[in-house]
């Protein structure tokens, strides 16, 4: 039988340290929903999503009750819509987003991802139309998330897309100016986007994925922080071992939930994503883990090293606990969703430049960063280009989710609500990148992409 202190440890992790399953995401292929008639395509999309995901929320809630582990989000990701919608003769894809929103409402999930385009080497006609539809689509829908992959290590960086996404982000913020530019919080720009990521806003169902699949994202920064608090002053070997053991335990629960959910739904099990995803709740912060390691404030010198250790140890512990690991799998550092990150920015310890350095050693990238409303589209494009370069050269995923909050200045706070939290407006470099961004074209793939 299991020993009592192990039972108590598990219960403590859940009740006091915010251990939870962050998301069960059902990936659904829409590749059989194409039609020359947009109305037919949308009907097929709606029918397929509501048929396959009909029981998703109920199964999630049942598992939550039976195992006593909170499952925070139930979500859906679909095939990038540009691939489906471009068979139709329509010019505007906003209606496809509305259909996704309606289907998400019908099955009760809180987000649906996949209003996406993959343009890392260039645009098709459908990609162009989809990207142009993003601002309106995200401003009139509630649950739809959008992503654009504009660079890979194999293909280099599509700088035309980089330029355009700066403008799209500005426009999205403008259309939702009454809510602080909320549409931008649902839009991610990727380099090396994973095809099986369960986390929003960047989830989509990749073209190599099966018909329908269950991917699970675990969480638990609070649990890691509490474990580290017990080894105060110990050397880094102990720190690393402690994180590994904790990550193992967290991931085992993710694996259990993923298996159980896929069995009950009759859908294949995809991956467990080993990301440490913070929430705005006090105690559920990645920044606090770094501070627990001995940094006065997240963002000070030593932060990148601390994050590198954390990220590596989480992967080492988690890999052994799950039969399939995928998605983003690394620590997230979204500013507005992490109480410690917000505190570090407010206190002047954490800047965009430091965050950029941190993205070299962890998953994702500049995530939920709020910048002044008067930041130019070219500056946003240049920030995207920098992140894409880090991803492409280092063979890793990077992303940018940036919100130029209309009318806001450095030092203001912008409230998004719920899991998106509230973000302090951060300073950007005042010098122009316009001529650089105006060049357009493609930045070639790096030499080490030639591996064959």
């Amino acid at each position, binding site marked *: *039988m*299991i*020993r*009592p*202190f*192990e*039972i*108590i*440890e*598990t*219960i403590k992790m859940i009740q006091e340290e915010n251990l939870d399953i962050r998301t069960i995401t059902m990936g659904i292929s829409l590749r059989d929903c194409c039609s020359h008639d947009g109305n037919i395509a949308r009907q097929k999309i709606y029918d397929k999503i509501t048929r396959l995901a009909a029981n998703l929320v109920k199964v999630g809630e*049942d598992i939550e*009750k*039976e*195992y*006593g*582990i909170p499952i925070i989000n139930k979500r859906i990701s679909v095939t990038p819509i540009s691939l489906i919608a471009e068979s139709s003769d329509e010019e505007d894809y906003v209606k496809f987003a509305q259909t996704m929103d309606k289907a998400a409402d019908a099955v009760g999930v809180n987000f649906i991802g996949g209003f996406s385009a993959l343009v890392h080497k260039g645009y098709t006609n459908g990609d162009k139309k989809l990207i142009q539809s993003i601002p309106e689509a995200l401003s009139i829908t509630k649950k739809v998330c959008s992503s654009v992959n504009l660079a890979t290590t194999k293909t280099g960086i599509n700088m035309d897309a980089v330029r355009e996404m700066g403008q799209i982000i500005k426009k999205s913020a403008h259309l939702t100016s009454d809510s602080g530019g909320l549409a931008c919080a649902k839009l991610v720009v990727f380099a090396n986007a994973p095809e099986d990521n369960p986390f929003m806003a960047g989830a989509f169902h990749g073209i190599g994925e099966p018909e329908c699949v269950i991917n699970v994202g675990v969480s638990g920064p609070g649990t890691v922080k509490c474990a580290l608090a017990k080894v105060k002053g110990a050397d880094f070997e102990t720190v690393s071992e402690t994180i590994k053991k904790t990550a193992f*335990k967290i991931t*085992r*629960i993710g*694996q*259990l939930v993923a298996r159980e959910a896929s069995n009950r739904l009759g859908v294949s099990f995809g991956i467990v994503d080993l990301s440490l995803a913070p929430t705005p709740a006090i105690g559920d912060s990645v920044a606090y883990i770094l501070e627990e390691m001995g940094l006065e404030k997240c963002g000070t010198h030593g932060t990148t090293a601390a994050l590198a250790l954390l990220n590596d140890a989480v992967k080492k512990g988690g890999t052994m606990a799950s039969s399939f690991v995928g998605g983003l799998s690394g620590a997230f550092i979204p500013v507005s969703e992490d109480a410690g990150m917000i505190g570090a920015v407010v206190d002047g310890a954490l800047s965009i430049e430091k965050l950029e350095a941190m993205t070299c050693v962890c998953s994702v990238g500049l995530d939920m960063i709020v910048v002044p409303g008067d930041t130019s589209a070219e500056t946003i494009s240049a920030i995207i280009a920098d992140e894409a370069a880090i991803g492409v050269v280092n063979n890793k995923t990077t992303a940018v989710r940036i919100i130029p909050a209309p009318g806001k200045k450095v030092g203001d706070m912008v409230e998004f609500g719920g899991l998106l939290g509230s973000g302090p407006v951060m300073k950007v470099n005042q010098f122009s990148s316009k001529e650089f961004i105006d060049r357009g074209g493609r930045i070639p793939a790096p030499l080490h992409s030639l591996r064959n």
Partner: protein
Amino acid sequence: MRAIVTVIGKDKVGIIASLSNILANCNVNILDISQTTMQDVFTMIMLVDISGLSISFSDLAVQLEKKGIEIGLSVSIQHEDIFNSMHQI
């Protein structure tokens, strides 16, 4: 199918009596009980067999939770697999 009932709080008369009454009414067999005091907190752990459960799992969880509130203790029931998967390879 087995589950673990956990009771945490201050020790008092009649904890086992009131909980086992609920379990018996739902046709749940108690397989093992252990109790300890950890860091001044009374902890009781019951391993129960729920294969013959006569009501739904979530209804049983609610009943136990309510009883817990009534007697001033935290009572929860969870499928044993969550502990097995976390602590055993």
